[in-house]
Each structure stands twice: as C-alpha cells, then as structure tokens.
C-alpha cells in the first residue's frame, strides 16, 4: 500500500496545494482544515495510521498543540512535521518538547521545498 499523509491546515488553498504536491508523488492524502477534524480523521482511520502528519499550529476549533497532545498519547512514534507561520522560539520549543520530527516556518518554505522536507519520513 502506498504511503499515507494526514494534513491539518486551516488555509484551504495551502492545504489543497500540499495535497496536490503529495498526490503527484503517489502519496495517499487525507486533508483536514482544523485540529478537531484532524483528530476525527485519525479516529476514523483506526489502524491506517498515517506515515506522516503535516500539522499547522494556529488553527480554529483545536490548535496544533492540542492535536499533538492526542497524537503523542495514542501514536507515540507517528512522525509529525509542523509547518507553521509561527517563528517564535516559544512555539518551536513547545513543539520540540512534544517530540515533533521537524519544524518549518511557512514563510521560509515553498512548494518545491515541501517534498524534500518530508520525503525521508516516507521511505
């Protein structure tokens, strides 16, 4: 079965674009637009735990920190890559403490950098 990535990103255009980039690389994608939706998707996926979760921090309903907390309780080893607009040390540190695999600031990234950033976690 092909690799599976869960995207949690409230900016619909960005989320869909990430989905498109990954689909082109033959990755199965589940797109959610806030933290709550992401958790519900995880619940629904049951045993089909994503190989990578791409997580935004500032999201409505439930933010990235809230999602991270649940993921770390249920799927300790699931790789989580944060892609956020927040570039402050506090947010980064908070994510680091929750054992995220990588942290990218959206501003410093573009579509071409996305695949190289997550490819190694999908091997």
């Amino acid at each position, binding site marked *: 079965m092909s690799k599976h990535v869960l995207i949690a990103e409230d*900016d619909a*255009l*960005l989320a869909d*674009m990430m989905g*498109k*980039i990954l689909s082109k690389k033959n990755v199965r994608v589940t797109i959610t637009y806030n933290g709550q939706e992401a958790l519900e998707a995880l619940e629904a996926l049951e045993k089909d735990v994503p190989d990578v979760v791409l997580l935004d921090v*500032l999201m409505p309903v439930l933010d990235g920190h809230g999602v991270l907390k649940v993921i770390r309780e249920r799927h300790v080893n699931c790789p989580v890559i944060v892609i956020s*607009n*927040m*570039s*402050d*040390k506090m947010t980064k540190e908070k994510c680091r403490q929750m054992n995220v695999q990588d942290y990218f600031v*959206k*501003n410093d*990234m*573009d*579509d*071409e950098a996305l695949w190289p950033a997550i490819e190694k976690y999908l091997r």
Partner: protein
Amino acid sequence: MGKKPPLSGSHATTLALKKLATEKEVVRRKLVVTAKKLRRKATQLAATAREKERVRRKLVVTAKKLKISHETLEKKVFERTKDLEQMKAKDEAILASIGDGLVATDKDGRILMTNKAFERLLGWKESEVRGKFLSGVIPMVDSDGKIILQPRHSLKDISATVNGASGSTLFYKKKDETSFPVAMTVAPIFIGKELMGAVNVFRDITKEKEIDKARSEFMAIASHQLRTPLTAIRWALSSLKRENLPDNLKKLVHTAHETSTQMAVTIRRMLMISYLEESATEPEMVEMNLKAVLEKVVRLHDAHRLRNGLEIEVRCPQDLVAETDEQLLIEILDNLLSNAYKYTPKGGKVKLTAALQGMMIRIDVADTGYGIPKEEQRKIPKKFFRASNIASPAASGTGIGLYMVYNIVRLIGGTISFVSQENKGTTFTLLFPS
C-alpha cells in the same frame, strides 16, 4: 660731773615750753608729711576716678555698639532663616510635585526621605518608612513575584537606569502586597568626594506595558493574518511557474512570485524589528562552521546574483568556528549581501571575507556598487532611510533592512561599520565575539 643745781621755777617752765615747742614742731612736720601724702592720695583717687569714668563711657559705647550688632545679627539670622525656609519649602514643593516616586537612602540603604508620589504609588507614609531599609520595606520582585536581591555594596557604581538581568521588567511591591512594574533610575549622592547615599526615582509603567503587550499581540495577529494568505499565494505562483505557460504569462507569474517573496521577507523583517524593539528576542548561542554559514547565505541569493550578472568571492578559513546565534547571523549577512547585490550595477563584484581578529570574528561585505553619498552616510541606520542615489536606478527597498541589521548586531554583542564612496562601492564590516 657735779651735781646739777636745782632748777629755778622759770627755768623749768622755759624748759617745758622748749620741749613743748619741739614736740609741736614734730607734730607739725608729721602733719605736713601726712598732708602731702593725703594730697598725693587725693590726686591718685582723682586719676582713678577719671580712668573709671573713661572706662565706663567706653563700656557704654561698646554696649551700645554690641546692642546694635546684636540687633543686626538677629535681623540677619531671621532673614537668612526665612530665606532658608523658603528655599526648603521650594525644594520640598519641587520634590513633592515630581510625578515620579522619589526615595533617598543613606549609604547603608536606610530611607532618609521620600516624596508624595512615593507615598501615592506605594501606599507607605514617609513617617512609617524613614530609617528603615529600602529593600526591606519595598521589595523588588520579578514578574513571577520572586524577590530580586539588591546588592548594597555596589552603590558607588550605580549611576544608570536599573533593569533586570536581561532587560526584564522589575516590579515594586506596595504596602497592600500588590505589585506594579517600574522603570527606575538610581544615582549615588556625593557631598564633596564622600558617598552619602543614593537617590532612586521610579515610575509606574503599567500603562506602557499594556500598550507594549497590545502592540505585540497586534503584530503577531497581523503578521499571521498577512503571512497565511501570502504563503498560499507564493506556493500557488511557484507551482504555476513550473507549468507550461505562454512566455508573456510566464513573465507575469515570475514577477508576481518574486514580489510576493519580497513581501514575505518584508513581513518577516517587520516582525523581527518588533521583537527586537521589545527585547523579546534573546540570542541562542551555538557553535557553527562559519564558511558553511557564508555559503548558505550566498546560495540563498544566487538567483538574484546571476540575474544581475554579478561576481561573488567568498574568503573564509575552512575551519573557522564562531559561537553566536546562527539565525541572527544569517539575518545580518542575508541583508548585507542582498543590499550589495541590489545596489551594484551589472558586471560588478561582491566580496565576502571572514577572518579571526583577536577574540573577534570579522566579516567584510564589499561591493563595487553605487555607494552611499557622503552627506547621507550619517543617516544610516535610520528606519525607512534610502539613499537618494539608489532610489531610481536600483531595485525596490523598504529601508528597514539596515536598521534591523544594526539592532541585531547589538543583540549578538557585536559592532558594525562601513566605508563608502559614491560610484566606487561600499564595505560593511561586522565584528562580533567568536
């Protein structure tokens, strides 16, 4: 001798008379002597009386003079006292009218005097605190309420605004145990060369802190609101760029992508300045290979460089290690290099040189560009300043880059300077602890 013949009666009388006359003469002489003595005495007494009278008169005059002097003195003392009282009242009125709290202590830190604002801000009356240790009555605490110990021995060195260890806010605890943020200035009091104590002027900065917080929150929200759609636009344009588009559209998309990227950089810089101005950023020191950092920065701008037909030369010892904040150093070099490329005409050259200079690392960014006009050089690094000679020929700019660079350099404990000659080029020299 024969027996004396008996005296006749008259002879005896004659003898008696003679004897009497003799005695009378003796008495007379004695009287003359006494009279002389008396006369002399009388003369002496008269002289004494005269002397006494003279002294008495003198005394009267002196007494009169003394009386006048005394009256003058009393008058003068009265006037001076009045002057002093007026001066004191004036000083007290001035001190009382100072809107900031004021407390003077002796050299041991015991409170000598306070003003009205002190009483109003802290809730303590001067009579309640006089003679007590300032640090005991008004503890200085940090934002967590933890008491900050104030060293007393360093009083002599105090002469500046007092801040927390890393520019953090200090709080004063009031009589009612609540606290408020303060900005204060402590200065030593010297009389002649002797240190008498210190005077501490402080004010409540609650309002400033609230405004700072509101501004910081606004910046965070605004930048997030701007960044999110901008990221989507940038990504969309970037993927469009790779599509098979007609040439005219391709050019448009390319320009749109570049502009949106530039806008993202500007937003990042504005946010960085906001953090720097609030001292919300603290450097995170890590060891790094400097050459790798320089090459990384050069790579970031390679597209720009090639487009402008510029040459780059990097000179740095292979094993040169620096210990500083990598992100901040990259931000500095990124700005300097991007400026060098932006303000150097086609065919020009940019040289990036790094070397160890004593305990410091020196990095030079030299270009062969337009330079900065001499009369405008002192305006650097003013926020939003752009030199008049580059406003037209060169690419867009906001004038916040160098302002930010100077602020960051200060943050990493370094210095920055430049030499520039119009139409010859500019060299920026960065020095920071290795």
